[in-house]
């Protein structure tokens, strides 16, 4: 990663996600409108079958970038486009229903923490995205149970709400929920952070399967072992005050 | 009985002054033109208090003429105190013939019953009405009930019938049973027993309803459809008795139940005294 090279997108496959000129600051009004720049003029592209790993020092803006791609954070400037229905859909400045549509059909997000919807059984939490897409209830439950099994969640926990689960168990519920639908684009924020080695391997396997099946993946992987296993390319995210001038996209040495 | 004295200082014909009669007649015309719709009118002070038939008396006073023959009944009887009083009142102030025979009357003023003898073209039935608004118990606000009638929003009425079935297993309302007139307005037929409701449907007679305290007049013109409200699976039914009238043997009329001694012996007797006498 010591020699940044120019654009290294695979020219044979059109990108699934294309970001250009993305900039974002946080303005904290309570502290005299203090502006904290985080992202400056970020550009990247990810194609189906690729897994782009975001790397960089803590606080550099990796998570901010990921959340901005999902529309969870608002970009100040630039463009985030996803490939949908053979056309580009722009997400920056888009109407909420456009972003919701993209999230529903095209883009999945595994957050670092499961936002626990209280009192809903784990299997139902996982099955919900399928139900929303009109999959029949028993079918959706079966697929959810299968996925939970793959991720090592014991059957006795399936009917329980995840609020009382361990961090690792909650994270696996999170992952199952986001991966139960075959999204063309997957955004992963530290998906294995709270998992032990055995469960980590299961998740890595799952991510690789999706990637190889054609998903375009962008992720933050703290664990270098995980990163090496899933990523096909690296994108360096540097804090805005970084001296690096050249675009930080580097091909992963194979 | 002194004759009516039409000199100055005495009562105007039929007690009410001409302007008042004209006003009431206008209200009656409007009521006849919009069957079942409650027309407000300027009710006057009458020589008896509210609750004693002032509405019915004002309607009768507005329409009665010297050629009329008046019958007055109270719960079907010609001989109760109130029926007698009202009949004598009109005999004095309107100089009319009176009768107890239904077939002979041109105007029949009634409290809470419809005569058993079928009415004919040309007869007028004047009902005494306590509460003209059929929705009053369900919706206390006058502003709201007027709006409901205007917009034909009668769901609340159906709700009250549903509630009756839920609570009693059947529609338990046995008097003042709500009806729909001419497919439009929902009306209270006054506290007649539901037994009498079918008599209102397409009756050859003109029905006039007067409420003195509430100051409303409404009407059902002759041959107008009057349908009692119900549910498809709980259709409207009238009362039936296993007994017959102890005096005339009728099995078709509305029977009053009377306790005749301290041992609790019961007699069932026709409520309509004229009908009963006519059969004996």
């Amino acid at each position, binding site marked *: 990663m010591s020699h940044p090279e120019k654009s290294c997108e695979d020219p044979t496959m059109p990108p699934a996600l294309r970001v250009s000129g993305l900039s974002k600051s946080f303005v904290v009004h309570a502290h005299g409108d203090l502006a904290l720049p985080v992202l400056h003029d970020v550009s990247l592209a990810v194609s189906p079958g690729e897994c782009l790993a975001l790397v960089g020092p803590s606080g550099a803006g990796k998570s901010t970038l990921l959340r901005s791609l999902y529309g969870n954070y608002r970009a100040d400037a630039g463009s985030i486009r996803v490939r949908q229905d053979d056309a580009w859909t722009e997400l920056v400045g888009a109407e909420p229903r*456009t972003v919701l549509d993209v999230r529903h059909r095209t883009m999945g997000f595994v957050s670092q923490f499961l936002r626990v919807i209280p*009192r809903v059984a784990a299997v139902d939490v996982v099955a919900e995205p399928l139900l*929303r897409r009109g999959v029949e209830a028993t079918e959706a439950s079966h697929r959810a149970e299968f996925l939970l099994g793959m991720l090592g969640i014991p059957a006795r926990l399936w009917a329980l709400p995840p609020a009382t689960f361990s961090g690792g168990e909650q994270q696996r519920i999170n992952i199952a929920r986001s991966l139960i639908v075959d999204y063309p684009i997957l955004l992963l924020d530290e998906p294995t952070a709270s998992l032990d080695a055995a469960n980590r391997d299961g998740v890595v396997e799952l991510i690789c399967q999706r990637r190889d099946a054609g998903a375009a993946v962008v992720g933050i992987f703290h664990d270098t072992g995980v990163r090496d296993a899933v990523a096909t390319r690296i994108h360096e995210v540097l804090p805005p005050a970084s001296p690096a001038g050249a675009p930080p996209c580097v091909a992963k040495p194979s | 009985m002194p004759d009516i004295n039409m000199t100055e200082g005495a009562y105007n014909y039929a007690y009410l002054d001409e302007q008042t009669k004209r006003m009431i007649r206008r209200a009656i015309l409007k009521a006849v033109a919009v069957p079942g719709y409650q027309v407000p009118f300027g009710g006057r002070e009458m020589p008896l208090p509210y609750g004693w038939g002032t509405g019915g008396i004002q309607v009768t006073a507005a329409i009665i003429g010297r050629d009329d023959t008046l019958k007055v009944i109270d719960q079907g009887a010609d001989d109760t105190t109130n029926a007698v009083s009202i009949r004598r009142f009109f005999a004095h102030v309107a100089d009319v013939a009176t009768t107890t025979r239904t077939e002979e009357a041109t105007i029949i003023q009634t409290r809470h019953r419809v005569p058993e003898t079928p009415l004919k073209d040309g007869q007028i039935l004047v009902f005494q009405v306590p509460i003209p608004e059929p929705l009053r118990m369900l919706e206390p606000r006058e502003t709201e009930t007027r709006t409901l009638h205007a917009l034909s*929003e009668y769901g609340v009425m159906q*709700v009250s019938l549903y509630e009756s*079935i*839920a*609570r009693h297993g059947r529609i338990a309302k046995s008097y003042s049973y709500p009806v729909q007139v001419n497919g439009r307005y929902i009306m209270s037929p006054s506290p007649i027993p539901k037994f009498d409701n079918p008599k209102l449907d397409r009756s050859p007679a003109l029905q006039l309803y007067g409420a003195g305290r509430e100051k409303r007049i409404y009407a059902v013109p002759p041959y107008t459809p009057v349908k009692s409200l119900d549910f498809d699976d*709980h259709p409207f039914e009238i009362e039936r008795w296993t007994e017959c009238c102890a005096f005339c043997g009728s099995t078709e009329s509305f029977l009053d139940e009377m306790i005749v001694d301290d041992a609790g012996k019961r007699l069932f007797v026709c409520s309509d005294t004229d009908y009963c006498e006519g059969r004996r």
Partner: protein
Amino acid sequence: MSAATLPSPLLSARNITKRFGGRIACHNVNFDLWPGEVLGIVGESGSGKTTLLNCLAGRLTPDAGSVIYETASAGTVDIHRLSEARRRLLTRTEWGFVNQDAREGLRMGVSAGANIGERLMAVGARHYGEIRGSAADWLARVEIDADRLDDRPTTFSGGMRQRLQIARNLVSGPRLVFMDEPTGGLDVSVQARILDLLRGLVERLHLSAVLVTHDLGVARLLTHRLMVMQGGAVIEEGLTDQVLDDPQHAYTQMLVASILPV
């Protein structure tokens, strides 16, 4: 959460302004609501959110602006230009309104079954058994015991009354539901169950809704989009998770920062 690609919104608010005397309650509010969307309006007391809701639902006439609704089969209508008869019919069939105080949205003197059945009877249902069956069905869907069908709401707890109010509104299959603090004033555990119920119903029935609340947690759970109101004006709007996780306006930031941690 499927955002449809239909050509026209379900409900459009244009320049809604309402004054009470000299005081501006809400000012120049504009938005489009699309089928299947749940829009949250949040703000503190006096922000104008309830006034706005009442203007949208036809309960108050705005001083300026218009509310346009796309009916099921009769094209678009300007709510405040409709005859009172049509507007009242609309509110009883295609719309629902869940009041904060369930008593305002129920007939307290008649049974639960009669309450739920009323909308059906109002549009001509005349078979007692069928009406009762529909009412029982809905009672189950809002998780009230079947044997309470003939009980009056005066005998129900606050949470049960609220669920009954929801059932009473949904029985006519409305396309758009207005909710004014639907869980306000209820115990926390009761709130939670009702939020779950609402979430489930909105999803399953593909309802669109406009929900007023001061509780950002309720907004997070139930809404797709959020409008933040302050002093009668909409000062921020967007995707719910974006407004709550990345608030832009000073007031929104203050609101979000004020949530008590649990």
